[in-house]
């Protein structure tokens, strides 16, 4: 076999593997999409795979959600939106300025230890926190409030942001900042007008990643909220435990509403997200 034939064979094999795995990833998502257009009858006798071929798609699940019962899922949806955005914004502001400080200032030669201290949080299992959080927020009277989840999620995202952003800022040239300071700018101005804009790709990546983390979190939400402040994941699981029966088409529609925004954001920012996700490990 010649070298070019070998090369062609290799790329045929590669594409086959990639397409196969793409289908494995696609199938469950396809199933949720078609289920959201199904009727009860399409799910009670046998599995149906193709709209218009073996079942007649309908919009009733979507109509049910957006017309009949909008308020029913709007509350948890808004909880998720508010909690995810506020907690990520707080985490970004606090975490990135700490990352900047650790990149630019000297803390008695202990900068690396401080960063490691932040990252030690990664090691701790969530189970170690939920019991203390439960008692803590109960004493504070914050159980079942958005504030409780905002506090927990922002503190959860800060270490990761400090870690990524410190490296990001370290990679930026310090000369621009220095000349701005010679021209009379102070540190705060330098951070907001010069460093932050230059670090925008990193900031976007960590912001979106912490947004997704807060949006999808389940264990803490389950521990700290139960009615008023429940988020979308919790809302979905509660639909079953209450009735023991699930309206899969409605659940599928809700899943799509909750999944599409974050998946779209993540995939649109693929380059930044991938670098944020793989970041720490690539350094180590």
């Amino acid at each position, binding site marked *: 076999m010649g070298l070019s034939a070998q090369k062609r064979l290799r790329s045929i094999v590669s594409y086959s593997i990639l397409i196969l*795995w793409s289908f494995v990833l696609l199938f469950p998502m396809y199933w949720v999409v078609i289920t959201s257009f199904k009727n009860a009858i399409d799910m009670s006798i046998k599995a149906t795979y193709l709209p218009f071929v073996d079942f007649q798609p309908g919009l009733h699940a979507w109509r049910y959600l957006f017309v009949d019962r909008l308020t029913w899922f709007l509350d948890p949806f808004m909880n998720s939106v508010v909690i995810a955005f506020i907690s990520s914004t707080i985490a970004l502001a606090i975490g990135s300025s700490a990352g900047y400080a650790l990149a630019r200032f000297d803390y008695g030669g202990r900068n690396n230890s401080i960063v490691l201290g932040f990252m030690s949080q990664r090691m701790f299992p969530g189970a170690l926190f939920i*019991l203390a959080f439960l008692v803590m927020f109960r004493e504070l009277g914050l159980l079942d409030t958005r504030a409780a989840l905002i506090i927990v999620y922002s503190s959860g995202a800060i270490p990761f942001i400090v870690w990524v952003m410190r490296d990001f800022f370290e990679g930026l040239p310090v000369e621009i900042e220095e000349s701005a300071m010679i021209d009379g700018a102070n540190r705060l101005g330098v951070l907001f007008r010069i460093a932050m804009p230059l670090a925008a790709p990193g900031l976007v990546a960590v912001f979106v990643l912490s947004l997704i983390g807060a949006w999808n979190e389940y264990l803490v939400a389950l521990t700290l909220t139960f009615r008023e402040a429940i988020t979308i994941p919790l809302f979905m699981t509660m639909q079953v435990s209450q009735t023991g029966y699930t309206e899969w088409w409605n659940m599928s529609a809700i899943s799509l509403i909750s999944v599409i925004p974050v998946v779209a*954001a993540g995939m649109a920012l693929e380059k930044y997200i991938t670098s944020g996700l793989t970041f720490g490990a690539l350094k180590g």
Partner: protein
Amino acid sequence: MATETRIDSPKRSRFEIRDNIWKWIFLLPAVAIIVILLAIPVLWTLYAAFTDLHLYRIGIDTKFVGLANFEKLLSNRSFWRTARNTVVFMLGVVPTQLFIGLTIALALNNITRGQKLFRTWFLMPLMVSPVVVSFIVGRMLFQEDIGPINEILRDLGFQGIPWLTSPTWAMVALMVIDVWQWSSFMILMLLAALQGVPPDLHEAARVDGANQLQAFWSITVPLIMPITMTALLIRIIDAFKVVDIIMVLTGGGPGQATESVTLAIYRTGVKGGDLAFGSSQAYFLLLVLMIFGGAYLVLTRRAMGKD
């Protein structure tokens, strides 16, 4: 003066004195939040593990019980069952993810056209909520009577699998879900590692007469090893902490067959209110993670140093 600072540490600014206030204003909020929300819970849980604290009797007559909770833990068969489940889960998912991750990353590294498209699509599972994956997708796809997986199996002439009612298959279903969701992490990490391998090194080995497999084994593998080891450690730790997909797909059942340590802690401490016993379980998990993580780091460093 200015030049001196710059020689010492070229990345640092020469405005050290003026910055003395900002230095702390920028850093302290993050430190304060982490100390309050990390250190306090960790220490409080340690304290709780040595008491008889109960959720419905907080502040009333709390007694120190020494190591009683840990003694109870070690002799508790149900806890060991959950520990075993967690290890089985980890051993099932991590090697599979490594295998899939390496295969796909090699394939991706092999192609040029469409690479970005595949990479973007492979990011998708990492963005999807585990609850959606496990609850909606898992329960629908693994449904025993009319779920598509069993239907396809029956069409192929096999028997339907009792996914959620058999202890073994319930565990397999959870593993499938975790592999579906997290293989992408391995793919992206290993792809980044592979792209760091200089192509001319590989070519040189081929010119020197090494075949494809030899070149891969002697050039690529050692070079991607550090990232692979880190990625594995991250996945192992995460697999040890598994909880949400279990809560929603099987609830730990049938019986206790798929209950993980974290789920047991939730059941004991949050649902049952036994904060003391739950805390001791949490510390047991932390101890295992620390011993394991430490040993892993030492061993991999040593192994790679020898290479």
